[in-house]
């Protein structure tokens, strides 16, 4: 299988920035910020090269898609192909991300530098995704959702309404504060429905993904709820 040389990623990013500069300067600015950030941190601070390329790959693909669907014909075809969670990302959340200040940017880029990836609950997230897919639900996840928008994944059930899911292992005493921060973050990005799923890593989750898909169908806009998986 052919591969692209790692050095080409920078050229891909430059090409996307050039297109975005003409069509959507705010996206160009956000991508340029990343490029400069890499430039500034490359000496000693950014050490995990696969992680940096992984993020860049996501950024480049998302930006290319978003710029292409500015064309009405491309957008029509895109809407026929995209799942509800993909639509929610590219039509609502992605433009929100580059169109407004990301207050957590400094924090999450620091996280990246300290190499707190993959996350401890990644296996559980992956397992949830597989279950969602096996039950004909759809999901969407990426670094920006996770790091900036307090969302491990977007999911949707039969009614095609996207729901933000965040997993947490916080102790009950810390959960209230976590909930406040989580809810504030979701609201600031315009995410209209969310579930904060609290679980104990020592015990298997008793709440199944089916119940989350049910929440996706039934939870009203403006509702952000905490679900305890052990109860």
């Amino acid at each position, binding site marked *: 299988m052919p591969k692209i040389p790692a050095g080409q990623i920078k050229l891909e990013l430059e090409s996307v920035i050039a297109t975005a*500069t003409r069509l959507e300067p705010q996206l160009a600015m956000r991508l340029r910020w990343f490029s400069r950030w890499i430039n500034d941190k490359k000496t000693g601070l950014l050490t995990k090269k696969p992680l940096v390329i992984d993020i860049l790959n996501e950024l480049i693909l998302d930006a290319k898609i978003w710029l292409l669907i500015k064309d009405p014909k491309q957008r029509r075809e*895109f809407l026929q192909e995209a799942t509800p969670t993909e639509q929610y990302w590219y039509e609502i959340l992605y433009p929100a991300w580059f169109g407004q200040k990301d207050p957590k940017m400094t924090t999450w880029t620091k996280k990246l530098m300290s190499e707190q990836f993959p996350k401890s609950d990644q296996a559980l997230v992956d397992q949830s995704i597989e279950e969602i897919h096996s039950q004909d639900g759809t999901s969407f996840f990426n670094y920006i959702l996770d790091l900036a928008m307090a969302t491990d994944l977007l999911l949707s059930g039969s009614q095609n309404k996207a729901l933000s899911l965040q997993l947490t292992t916080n102790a009950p005493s810390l959960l209230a504060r976590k909930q406040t921060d989580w809810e504030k973050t979701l609201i600031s990005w315009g995410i209209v429905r969310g579930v904060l799923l609290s679980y104990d890593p020592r015990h298997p989750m008793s709440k199944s993904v089916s119940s989350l898909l049910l929440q996706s169908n039934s939870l009203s806009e403006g509702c952000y709820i905490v679900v305890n998986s052990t109860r």
Partner: protein
Amino acid sequence: MSLEDAILNQSQKEASATDLLRAARKYRNDKLTHGLERVNLYVEDVEGPWLENWSDSGEIDFSAADLSKDSISNVLLNDLSDAKLLSVSSRGVNLNGAKLIRVIFKSPDLNDVKLTMTILSGVDLREADLSEVIINGADLRETDLSGINLRGAYLRGANLSGTILNSADLSGAYLNGAILNGANLSGADLSGAYLSGADLREADFSDAILSGTKLDEAQFGFNPGVDEDMKIDLKKRGAKFVDSPGDRSLAIPGSPT
């Protein structure tokens, strides 16, 4: 070959949005099976020197950009710190409330740009054309605006304290109530400008042109470039001098005397 070609294992072609969507989806699903190792499926020499070779000056060439819509106000400019804007054409852009910290504008055409209450500290706008721009109430303290064209600009109440405006064209500018104390106005053209009620104490007027300038209640004092003859002329035109006997009471409330 592009990234999406590598992911979709296809020969080089112009990708459609749906092609890219499939590539992004495949790349996402790869994470479930390969984790971070997915990178190595499509990119070679990941551990090579690409990161060390990464260079980015932060220069943004907006020469072809469409900045002519209001939606870029605030957000874009908040992120523009340290950026260099080359040949920006941004007529009609609303930059109200934006922070333009250390931004370098090279030959910008910013006519009709609204910059009300904008913070422009440290911005390099030398020789910029901002004629008829509306910058009422803006904070332009300590900014280097030497040689700038602010002909007919609306700068009512703007804070231009300590601002470098030497050789600036301020003819016909509306500077009523502006704070210009300590500003460098040497060689500036203030002909026909409205300076009524402006605080001009300690501003340098060496070789400045003040013909036809409206000076009612404008407050002067300790100004380099203002000799006794000129002082008499300015007083006749309504100016007040805090360094003249009997005019000490003109010190602005709340400001150091």
